[in-house]
């Protein structure tokens, strides 16, 4: 059985990758804000958890980082999706779709879940 944090880490990684795919190169703060935005405030991420996740993704070779200047001219580290990262987004997205589709059979719409 996976620990809760593992599941969370997996999904957080996918959210980060997906964010970078849609938004292009972005710094940690931007990614965190964007995830919060997209989840419409339902997901309260401690911004700090973003950074270890970014580090791991970089170690896995899905993203690369470099220092750059932010919109208001501050130095910040920018993260960019690699080709392997793009493939990983596809793969993970499919996996999620499949998983939710399977789960959907178990949880038909409109039925009460007790």
């Amino acid at each position, binding site marked *: 059985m996976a620990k809760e944090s593992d599941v969370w880490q997996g999904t957080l990684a996918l959210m980060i990758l997906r964010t970078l795919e849609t938004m292009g190169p972005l710094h940690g703060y931007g990614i965190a804000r964007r995830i919060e935005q997209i989840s419409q405030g339902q997901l309260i991420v*401690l*911004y*700090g958890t973003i950074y*270890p996740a970014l*580090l*791991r993704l970089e170690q896995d070779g899905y993203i690369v980082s470099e220092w750059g200047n932010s919109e208001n001219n501050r130095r*910040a580290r920018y993260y960019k999706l690699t080709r392997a990262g793009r493939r990983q987004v596809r793969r993970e997205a499919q996996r999620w779709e499949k998983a939710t589709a399977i789960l959907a059979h178990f949880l038909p719409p409109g039925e009460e879940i007790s």
Partner: protein
Amino acid sequence: MRPLRASLLRLRGVFRASRDGQFDEEIAAHLEMHVCDLIESGLSPDEARRQAIIRLGGMESTRQACRDAERLPWLENLLRDCRFAFRTLAKNPAFTFVALAALTLGIGASTTVFSVVESVLLRPLPYTDPGRLVWIHDGLTQGDKSGWSACMEDFLLWRARAHSFAQLAAFTGDHFVLTGDGQAEELSGVDVTARFFDTLGVRPLAGRTFAADADQPGRESTALISERLWRSRYAARADIVGSSIVLDGHAVVVIGVMPSTFRFVFPDADVWRILPLTPPTRRGPFILRGIARLKPGVTLAEVNAEMAGLAQGVERADPGRLERLRYPVVGLTDAVVGDVRPLLVALASATALLLLIAVLNVGNLLLARAAVREQEIAIRLSIGAGRRRLIQQLLTESIVLALAGGGIGVFLAFICTRLLRASPPPGIPRLETLSIDGRVLLFTLLVCILSGIAFGLVPAMGATRPNLSMVLQEGGRGGGESLRRRRLRNVFVVAEIALAVILLAGAGLLIRSFLTLGEVPMGFGARPDHLLTMQISPGGDRYGQRQRLAIYWGAVIREVSSLPGVDSAALSIWLPPDHAAMSDSFEIQGKTPPDGGPVVPVPFVSDGYFRTLQIPLLRGRAFDGRDTPASPPVTIISENLARRYFPGEDPVGKQLKQGGPQSTNPYMEIVGVVADVKYEGAGSPDEPVYYESSSQVPGRPMWLVVRTRNDPHRLIPAIRNRVAALDANVPISHIGTMDENMYASVALPRFRSILMGAFALIALLLAAIGVYGVMNYSVLQRTQELAIRLALGATRRNVIGTVVGHGIFLALCGITIGSVGALGFVRTLRSMLFHVSPGDPATFSGVALLLLAVAVAASYIPALRAARRDPLRALRRE
């Protein structure tokens, strides 16, 4: 691949300079952007900063999370623990030295013994599919020491009738004199039947092995030679294959060269000559050994059943002749290493015990140290160190210690295995391939880690569960070793003593056996250090005729006897203590069973033999000038033969025949009875022996034995010259004194006594250290109590008595438990004991007394120190 890449990156992160600075900058930028956004939404700068940090989840924990993600935290912990362990060990040199010494000895011994067990017992024999190779023998004969023997009739029967074998061969050890192409050389070799090499599944280095019909009578004589001989005598000439060499005066065609890696039963063999299957005229001589390869799927039980059936068939065809005939078949591996298995099992158990003592010893030391470190650990626990983490750290420390000990131990084992390979103790086969290979190293690594955990876990568990408030309240006063720990240390010491008792008892029994063996009378009166022996091997056609050989031997004795300094000289094919030659059965009309008497040594000896060795003549006469090839054959029997087969009557004048009832040999008249002599080692029982006169039946090669007035070594050149003057082509070999021969004949018992003795000595030393450590520590702990007693009027004697009494109590517990264990252990030694019972009371009580004395001595020193201390000063310091 990706997880691997990530792991490597993280591994690199452990050793590379940290990205810490970059994290800090990144997080600072993050906070700044967040603060700006919050200020824009209307918060005050301070409040904005506060909120931003809360949303981040704390500065330090974020940094830590990044650090952990960058590296491998467990590896970092491990490295840190290792560094810490090294520092701690370096800070306590005395502790480290004793612990390392114990571990080095324990692990070094285990590694050496395991490498021996591996190369002798575990590694498969170096032949094709060795599991299907078997050894067959004739169950009738007791056989000589080096293996079982069968005769040609048996072999031909197996070959013709047995269906279980894919291949079958027979062989017998032989000696050859090689002449031509330079100096005469005496070679040891083997006579083998045609399928010998095919049965083993080995290939020659050059040339080919024997054709399937090469052993049919009347074929050209062929042989394979060893790589050693090929290189040393023939300069590795390629054309040696197909050329002729002269062995014992007969031309033999060399058809191949065997690589030096090939060894089978006779490690020094240089020649494998074809053994022609000449149909025998009688049952015997019993000089052959059979090997065979089982057909696939045939089990040992099946082949044994088939062979037993064959034997019964023979019995039915000629009832009464061959009772007991069974033809047992055993696996070749068992036949080769079966004899040493008990020794190796005993050695392995002894080593395991030694290792256990070492582990207990180090555990004991660690327990003592845990008491000293109680404060350190208590403080660390109370400021929030996790217990798991602390145990992990303490365990790392003990494993580092074990690995360090193991490292030195492997070095020690490396030296030991080289020594063993260079001068292997006799009787242990296959040591030439002894080495410390990957399997041995893996074993050692495992032993290190397991012993590290074994001696580290209990102290670590105990140390991390202290009563915090108690320890901290004690302050720096160094008191209060917990009762549980004290009890544990006592248990450890008792166990150490018990194990030492077991090893000492084993060593004591082996040493007693060895000493007893040295005192066994060999049966001859001459001083062994004044007897010179050497083998003389006249070969070739020149001495093919009995008469010429007899003349040669006569000349040798005459020449040597006339040398100044020589008292007496003689010849024999057998020599005590264990220079074996021909054995045969015998028949005395109406006295021996229908299949003949047992197969016993038949020494052919020259006239002066009994006089030279000073073997007492009990009845009749010795061989003398009356006995010639032309005179009626005579024999002299041993006391044992006389007692067994002529009870209450005078054997002199009776008739005895060499070989069984079917033999065509003539009856010989018994002319004398001599005292029993040990021909098959000091440990062998007395057995019937009958002598024949070498004037009537000259043997070759023969042993020359010379009794000298002074140091026999000085006569060697003169004797060599005299013999060479007779015929320079006759090789002389194995020159030595009887003293040296006797020393060599007990090499194996000596080897195991020394080995077990060394183990026992180490065990004793470790046990002494253990007792001393515990007593010393307990005296320190009881400083206050003892001081008060002294102050209240107890005498020093009382104090010493209390402490030593405790030591004696521990020793007695250990001795009692150990004696019970020893009774079990010495059972594995039973086959190695000689005239000593496994439960020998003298040995056991000696061991008990020794350990008691050691325990008293080890506790007396701390006791004396405690008693001498000025009670007032001791109390004040507390």
